């Protein structure tokens, strides 16, 4: 199959949607510019015109409310906020209005708004450009929350989100944008709410989402070198949460590790541990959680390097959980490498 970058896959999804549904429009800061939201909207305005591919004022609250209005009137807006942090200004229309519209008005009018939010990380993104608030959205009944990991999912789940009659928040991790993978040319009719087993193992189940799934896959690889066999479940949709896949795997491995791009405390990893506990599965060892510590994001690389958990941290945690004090020491393959940007080719600022 063709290979595309995650960013190009998003672009292609929007192109497909704009071409196939006249009610779709894309709006956000810089959407029709040549930089095009890190390349994800480049060229769309040329193909579909300025009334379907729009810039907007820096008015996140009002513009998201506007999107809610267009959606309840029958359109399918795709609204992009360049960072999750900016969308904190837009919580009111998303949470009080969009999420509750269908229910409150007696199931008469749906609100098919899709909001794309980009999670920043590294290269000085700092405290106000790097938040990952999926736990907030997942806590709100009426919203669906999508976090794609692969380029294929970046495309297919965005199409599913826009076609879904519910309001959907799609969180895209900036560090995935340049990753490359096979992407089907057509829409595969994917549905929201189904997780994917990315690796199958017997000793431990790693549940994760978005960029952290890549770290988990790497952790699984590291663990394999010492004979520990790990399953990796990529959530894909945080809400609704596909507990069937998770429980299926954990029942088998009887060990649970959750890795999240957001803060650990009061985040989505707690919910997953809780659901497994409620299901009454007896784990062989204590569950582990990896995510951001209880601190805002420091800007300097010297601190953000320790702030973000990595594959090696996960692998080491698991090896000592599984093998105890006898666990062989895993070496850090990235030792001494710069850690605050996704690949060496990247040079900021962004």
């Amino acid at each position, binding site marked *: 199959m063709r290979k595309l970058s995650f960013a190009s896959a998003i672009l292609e999804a929007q192109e497909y949607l704009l071409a196939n549904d006249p009610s779709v429009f894309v709006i956000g800061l810089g959407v029709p510019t040549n930089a095009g939201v890190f390349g994800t909207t480049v060229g769309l305005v040329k193909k579909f015109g300025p009334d379907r591919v729009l810039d907007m004022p820096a008015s996140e609250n*009002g513009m998201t*409310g506007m999107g809610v209005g267009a959606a309840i009137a029958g359109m399918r807006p795709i609204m992009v906020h360049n960072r999750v942090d900016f969308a904190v200004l837009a919580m009111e229309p998303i949470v009080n209005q969009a999420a509750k519209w269908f229910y409150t*008005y*007696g199931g008469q009018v749906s609100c098919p708004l899709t909001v794309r939010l980009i999670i920043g990380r590294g290269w000085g993104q700092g405290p106000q450009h790097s938040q990952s608030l999926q736990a907030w959205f997942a806590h709100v009944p009426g919203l669906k929350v999508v976090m794609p990991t692969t380029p294929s999912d970046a495309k297919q789940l965005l199409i599913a989100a826009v076609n879904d009659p*519910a309001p959907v928040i799609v969180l895209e991790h900036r560090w995935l944008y340049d990753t490359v993978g096979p992407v089907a040319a057509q829409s595969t009719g994917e549905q929201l709410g189904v997780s994917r087993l990315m690796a199958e193992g017997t000793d431990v189940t790693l549940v994760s989402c978005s960029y952290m799934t890549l770290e988990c896959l790497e952790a699984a690889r590291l663990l394999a070198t010492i004979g520990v066999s790990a399953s990796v479940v990529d959530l894909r949709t945080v809400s609704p949460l596909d507990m069937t896949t998770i429980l299926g795997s954990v029942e088998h491995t009887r060990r649970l590790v959750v890795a999240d791009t957001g803060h650990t405390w009061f985040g989505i990893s707690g919910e997953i541990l809780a659901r497994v506990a409620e299901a009454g599965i007896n784990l062989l060892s204590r569950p582990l959680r990896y995510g951001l510590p209880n601190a805002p994001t420091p800007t300097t690389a010297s601190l953000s390097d320790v702030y973000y958990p990595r594959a090696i941290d996960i692998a080491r945690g698991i090896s000592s959980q599984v093998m105890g004090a006898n666990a062989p020491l895993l070496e850090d393959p990235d030792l001494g490498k710069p850690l605050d940007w996704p690949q060496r080719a990247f040079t900021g600022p962004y």
Partner: protein
Amino acid sequence: MTNGWPHELAPYFEMLRIRRVEEAIARRYSDQQMRTPVHFCIGQEAPAVGVSMHLTLADQVMSAHRNHAHYLAKGGDLGRMIAELYGRSTGCCKGRGGSQHLIDTSVGFAGAAPILGSTISIATGIAFKLAKFNPGEVVVTYFGDAACEEGVFHESLAFASLHSLPIIYVCENNLYSVHSPMESRQPDRPIAELATGHRVPSFEGDGNDVAEVSMLASTAVNRARNGAGPSFLVFNTYRIVGHVGPEVDLNLGYRTQDELDHWERKDPLVQEMRRLGLPTAAWKELSDQMEDSITLEIESAFRFAIESPYPDAAEVALDVVPS
């Protein structure tokens, strides 16, 4: 707005009807059967009626917490409104919304919601849709003087101006936000000036004079229909009863008997009756007719509501997302 009465009388009838509905709700409110915070519009009937006269069924209206007049004047179903207040499954939101969330999409009443300012941006989005898919149709959104204090008010007007959207922003300035007077909340200037910076033309008028409302609304609606973009209408008016619930809350001390008297003299019904200037006898006959038909309609609506079932417990978790 077509209520069966001749053009000249229709606004008066509609205001009377709204007034009587509100009074009927007020009378039964203490039964504790309508357990939903009702923001009565008694005294504020004119803006809804004067504006709706210029709207078609296809035009869209959004309102906020004080929405009964807007819903009724747009043609919203009375029975389903009362049933909603009673929390019944036949309510316009199946009981889930209550007084602050009326809706009747069959007549273009797109909804109402009580978070100040939010419906202003949502209505702007509806206008965005109409501009593209339903040229000639317009949106009206009603809100109070306090909603103009929300930043989203400005964000919405600026966007509507930028894209020349077919929308009329209607502020009913009744001097208060709950119990807080204007001077503790806003600089001393006409509210209408808020639109200047966005190049949205604004028109201010007597919100207790339905003829004046209608005149200004006509200008604004025509502008919107003809692609000339948004307008901001400010109608000065007054709510006779308290912020929420049917009590006349003079005991709270935030307003005076004098002020109330002043505004009762400016009652929109009285003003309109005077303007019509019919001979007393003819008027008496007319208004008896009006009262009778309204009474019947109201009784039937309450009966419908009270005889309707409550939603079934299982409905609590239905419709969270559409399927």
